[in-house]
């Protein structure tokens, strides 16, 4: 029934004209650039803000803690003999940025050190002071008890807990944090892609309608062929973009660590950032299995097909984009609902709620990859979901094509849901 050569021609046109368009080139290049910036910017900002010299006065009643603090960083901390009242005055006059009061009972495990500041300290400063004081006080107290180094080592040691999932085939290491984040990223990318490419389809239908070219095309091909060609062409475009991004991402991950290190250089200020960079590099170590990639591409495609058929129907029913909002609303709701369940589903991917939601064809494109990233789902769930989605697509495509073939010829008015229903039932 479908004329293959015509369909191929349409797919070719839809794909190639968009591939060559400025917007495609720009978004393809810009998205990874934005990602690089997001990765690198915090590090750069941290390096830049390190330029400002910060200094805090320490009023020490213990006669030990202050010295140790200054010994650790003589710029950051400076001992003072001025009493707290005059320090308070100096702070109010803006002569000092802040001061730390160490009461003498602190070394007895009582009371607390108090850090006074004018509201300018910020989280980095307060958390650094907290950890410095804790370390110094702990060390002094351990010294006083002649604690052997072995004990100190135990105290400062971090105990690792590993998460391993055991699959039917045997044992498999899993970094569940990593996979959860991966699932999230995939869910969000699919969400964005369904929206973005859905809008591309809608605008494309609308453009053909308002430019009236559609009547010429419809006198050469069946509207269904035009619609299918459009959907397939844009899906291929989406895949092309993903492949380009995946390549860029692979390069990015390979170079991210060294690049960040390059930006950071040496220096005590950036030690933490360097650690963070190392973390980023380490983050790429868990392997992303082929099943995750396949499911990601598969669910993106199926989701795109389902939603693009809906967006196409809306595009054919209106003359201009501003009229489309009311008709788009149900579609937008369907895309957004699974986002609200991202957390519960990734937190407990095997719960009845998670399984049910992720198998609903409209939600599956976002929730299934999230679940599949975190755990190995039973094959029947995967199969059933894919089957349900294909069925949904076929039914929706059939309905949309009927709306579409009437809608593209209706000029000058905005259709209501009732009219869409009527068009659908027309012979």
């Amino acid at each position, binding site marked *: 029934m479908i004329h293959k050569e015509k369909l191929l*021609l*349409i797919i070719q046109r839809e794909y190639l*004209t968009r591939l060559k368009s400025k917007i495609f080139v720009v978004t393809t290049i810009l998205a990874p650039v934005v990602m690089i910036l997001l990765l690198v910017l915090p590090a750069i900002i941290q390096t830049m803000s390190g330029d400002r010299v910060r200094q805090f006065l320490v009023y020490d009643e213990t006669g030990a803690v202050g010295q140790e603090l200054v010994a650790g960083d003589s710029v950051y901390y400076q001992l003072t003999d001025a009493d707290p009242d005059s320090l308070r005055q100096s702070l109010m006059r803006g002569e000092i940025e802040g001061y730390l009061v160490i009461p003498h009972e602190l070394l007895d495990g009582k009371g607390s050190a108090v850090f006074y500041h004018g509201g300018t300290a910020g989280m980095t400063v307060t958390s650094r002071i907290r950890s410095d004081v804790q370390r110094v006080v702990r060390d002094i107290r351990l010294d006083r008890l002649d604690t052997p180094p072995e004990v100190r080592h135990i105290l400062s040691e971090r105990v690792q807990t590993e998460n391993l999932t055991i699959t039917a085939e045997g044992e498999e290491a899993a970094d569940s944090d990593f996979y959860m984040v991966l699932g999230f990223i995939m869910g969000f990318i699919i969400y964005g892609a369904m929206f973005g490419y859905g809008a591309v389809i809608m605008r494309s239908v609308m453009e053909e309608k308002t430019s009236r*070219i559609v*009547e010429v095309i*419809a*006198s050469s*091909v*069946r509207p269904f062929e035009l619609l299918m060609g459009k959907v397939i062409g844009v899906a291929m475009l989406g895949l092309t973009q993903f492949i380009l991004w995946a390549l860029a991402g692979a390069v990015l991950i390979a170079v991210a660590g060294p690049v960040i290190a390059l930006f950071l250089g040496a220096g005590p200020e950036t030690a933490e950032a360097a650690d963070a960079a190392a973390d980023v590099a380490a983050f790429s170590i868990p392997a992303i299995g082929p099943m995750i990639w396949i499911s990601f591409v598969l669910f993106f495609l199926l989701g795109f097909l389902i939603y693009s058929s809906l967006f196409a129907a809306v595009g054919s029913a209106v003359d201009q984009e501003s009229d489309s909002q009311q008709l788009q609303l149900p579609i937008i709701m369907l895309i957004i609902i699974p986002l609200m369940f991202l957390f519960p589903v990734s937190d407990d991917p095997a719960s009845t709620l998670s399984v049910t939601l992720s198998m609903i064809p409209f939600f599956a494109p976002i929730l299934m990859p999230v679940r599949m990233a975190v755990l190995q789902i039973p094959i029947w769930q995967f199969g059933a979901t894919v089957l349900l989605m294909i069925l949904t697509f076929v039914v929706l495509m059939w309905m949309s094509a009927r709306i579409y073939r009437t809608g593209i*010829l209706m000029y000058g008015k905005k259709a209501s849901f009732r009219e869409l229903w009527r068009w659908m039932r027309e012979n």
Partner: protein
Amino acid sequence: MSDSIVRFNGVTKKFGDFRAVDDVSFEVRQGRIFGLLGPNGAGKTTSIRMLTYILKPDSGSITVFGIPAGPETQARLGYLPEERGLYKKMKVGEQLIYLARLRGLSRQDARERIRYWLERFGAYEWIGQEVGELSKGMQQKIQFVATISHDPDCLIFDEPFSGLDPINSEMLKDVILELRDAGKTIFFATHRMEQVEQLCDDIALFNKGQLILNGDLNQIRSSYGHNSIRLRFTGDSRFLSELKNVRVNNRSTNFAELRLLQDADDQAILREAQKYVRVQGFELVQPSIQEIFIDSVTREDRS
């Protein structure tokens, strides 16, 4: 008739309760210019959309080249819709090749034909430009090329002259006549009656979805006889309203077309006119197509 290219047989198309085309039957013969006439909303565009297989009739049948309207007949038709449109962002050449290939031409054939027609219209230099960069008139030419580039046997023009300047109109008219002489069949819809008189061999009059008059234009006109008067005069035109047994069409300050009703005496009207104005021209003629149209529609509405 063996040489009929298009045949509508009892065709009806409804939109909801509205009968856009109501039990219409007619034929278009090969090598003729067939005019589909009627006021806006008479069912012309719906008929054309069924002919081009964009819409399907609710009942009745349409055959083109002897086979039912469908994908095969689409490729042999060239359709210029009333509402013109092209892809604005696509280059002229790419776009024309695409449209021709959708109608079954090979890339090579498409390229040659498009080159021929673009040169013919003096538009070959635009081949690499985006359509959106061209003027309205230029776009019209491109669209015309898109309609005929696949060398269809039957061409369908819906209001082809709307929006064309006089020079391009003349050029288009020449091409239409040339295509007819080359054996193509032209299916031509318009509500501008004067164009019909200049171009059409056969006509079909539509009103409110129904076909009310159909046949050879000359035969139709001669069947009405010489029962119209063309009057040119100088003076006060108010007397026209006083004339009895005539219907006044096309009146202006110094010209009027009068239709004789019943057995009105043309000489009596001449004498009457001379009382009020200075008559410069008085001619008994066949009725204009506009007159025939109004006559048919009013008769239809009365019955």
